[in-house]
């Protein structure tokens, strides 16, 4: 298996390369450039043109690309045009925020969705099932930001249960326990919101898998052998039904990473999503390209993770 994983990782390199070319060209197609935003009556247009020249933005795109990819291959993604610091430093701060937020969201999501999905499937067509299905559709139909705002207003501002903005309280120093708890505390409300809204597909797939499994031969055999119902569910059905869910685990996490754009904007939580939107608006090429590359890498790792999990859960499928 290790050999296969290594091979998969190697395949990623050309994929990322194609992606880099794609996003670089796309980014250059964006109207305007990082200096367009500096337009005020007080700034000298000649100076702006000079800075453009200095930044190499007047070179043909392939020259810029070769320079960029050369540096990027050595881990240097350049400097942010707006934030004026190394892209790696800038994204590093935000990426950790987003990563932890997504992880906490994923944990809460599965904690909610798996029991509900199993219950709905097992007690199919009872009132129980109907309520769960209804819940899953309601959460799907509610746009993220509506629920997020409602939660923020009630639990943040009215009840003061959770902090309302930011990722950490300014009074703690990095590295202390207080800092860690403050971070986690700031993460909870956005994570819960994300989790509640993200359960639909897990519940739906789990439910339908279990309903299907009920009528399958091995379940019937097990039942007819007199194995208790609970045991049939926990041993047989549950394991098999988790297959598609497992297949989605990697994607769920990357999906949460990308979906963080909405949550981060509403909760003022400085992560990659928020950074992406703001750098897109300010045409911060170096940050846009680096972020897309990072998301691409994470997506690849996510899909690899999914395949590995799948091959563990269902030995019939070998990862290729």
């Amino acid at each position, binding site marked *: 298996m290790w050999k296969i994983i290594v091979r998969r990782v190697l395949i990623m390199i050309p994929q990322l390369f194609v992606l880099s070319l*794609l996003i670089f060209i796309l980014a250059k197609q964006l109207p305007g450039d990082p200096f367009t935003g500096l337009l005020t009556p007080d700034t000298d247009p000649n100076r702006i043109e000079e800075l453009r020249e200095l930044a190499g933005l007047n070179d043909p795109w392939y020259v810029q690309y070769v320079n960029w990819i050369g540096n990027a291959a050595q881990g240097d993604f350049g400097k942010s045009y707006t934030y004026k610091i190394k892209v790696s430093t800038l994204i590093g701060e935000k990426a950790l925020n987003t990563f932890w937020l997504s992880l906490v969201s994923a944990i809460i999501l599965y904690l909610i969705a798996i029991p509900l999905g199993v219950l709905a499937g097992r007690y199919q067509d009872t009132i129980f099932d109907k309520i769960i299905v209804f819940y899953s559709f309601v959460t*799907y139909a509610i*746009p993220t930001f*509506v629920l997020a*705002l409602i939660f923020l207003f009630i639990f943040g501002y009215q009840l003061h249960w959770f902090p309302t903005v930011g990722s950490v309280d300014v009074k703690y120093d990095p590295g202390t326990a207080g800092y860690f708890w403050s971070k986690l505390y700031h993460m909870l409300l956005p994570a819960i919101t994300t989790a509640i809204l993200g359960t639909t597909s897990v519940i739906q797939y789990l439910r339908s898998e279990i*309903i299907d499994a009920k009528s399958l031969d091995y379940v019937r055999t097990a039942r007819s052998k007199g194995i208790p119902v609970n045991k049939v569910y926990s041993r047989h059905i549950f394991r098999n039904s988790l297959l598609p869910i497992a297949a989605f685990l990697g994607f769920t996490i990357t999906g949460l990473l*990308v979906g963080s754009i909405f949550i981060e904007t509403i909760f003022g939580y400085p992560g990659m999503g928020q950074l*992406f939107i703001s750098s*897109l608006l300010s045409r911060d090429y170096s940050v846009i390209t680096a972020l897309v590359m990072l998301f691409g890498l994470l997506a690849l790792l996510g899909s690899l993770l999914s395949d590995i999990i799948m091959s563990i859960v269902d030995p019939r499928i070998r990862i290729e």
Partner: protein
Amino acid sequence: MVKEATVDSNKVEINSPPTGMQVVFREFRKDRLAMFSLISLVLVIVGVFIWAWLIDQEALMRVSLRDKYAEPGEKFFLGADLGGKDILGQLVIGARNSIAIAIAITIITVTFGIIVGLVCGYFGGWIDNMFMRIIDFFITIPSLMVIIVFVTIIPKYTVKEFILIMSLFLWTSTARLVRSKALSESRRDYVNASKTMGTPGILIIFKEIMPNLSSILIVELTLSFAGNVGIETGLSYLGFGLPPQTPSLGTLVSYANNPLVLQEKWWVWIPAAIFILLMMLGINYVGQALRRSADAKQRLG
């Protein structure tokens, strides 16, 4: 989309001896909720299209400042928005647009996804390998971000462009899902049995594997419809949605971004949100009935 699913199940049933369409009918007659949902869906969709056709869009989108946030009442049945534009009219046109978009995207992505997924899952080998590499590449692309970049770049951005961009990125997940399922199905005994009997691959795929995948497909269909509306809403919220002169359910709901609208001017966004919810529930119930009719083991009658 519903139509599409019916066609598929027809294909399945055509060769199978007893019933065909009758099974579907019988299933719906047994399940009154599904019947009700189906009828309502058809009525609503047809109604929305006809009604939208009757509305003079230019008059509807005329800004009338004095009617800013007019409350529901005599002049506007469902009130008016910031620009004093009738919400009901926008809801109808918006629903028409969103349904048309969702149907188009769903047909494109699901058809493509199913074909690729089934072919890969069943044949395996180099075909599978090739498609999987392509799909892998698409998975590398952070679709939401690239969609946003695309939307910023293209100079003319209308419903048509929106459908194409979305379809480009959405077919892969369906394909992957179907493939993983088809992969495990095609290792099963019944497929092997058919193979040894010399049944052609195409037949095995559509006649034998497909029905077993139908439950997962129907879930996928339901979710992708609402998902598309959801993405569109999200894009509108971020400011990358359809042009404001093209009302859609997404634009209407995204007005709730303004706390004032969210809390006090509920008539602007709640109708659209409820409409989305009802559509989803309806599709789900119809989908479940269809699934039962495709799967003999679960039939009610």
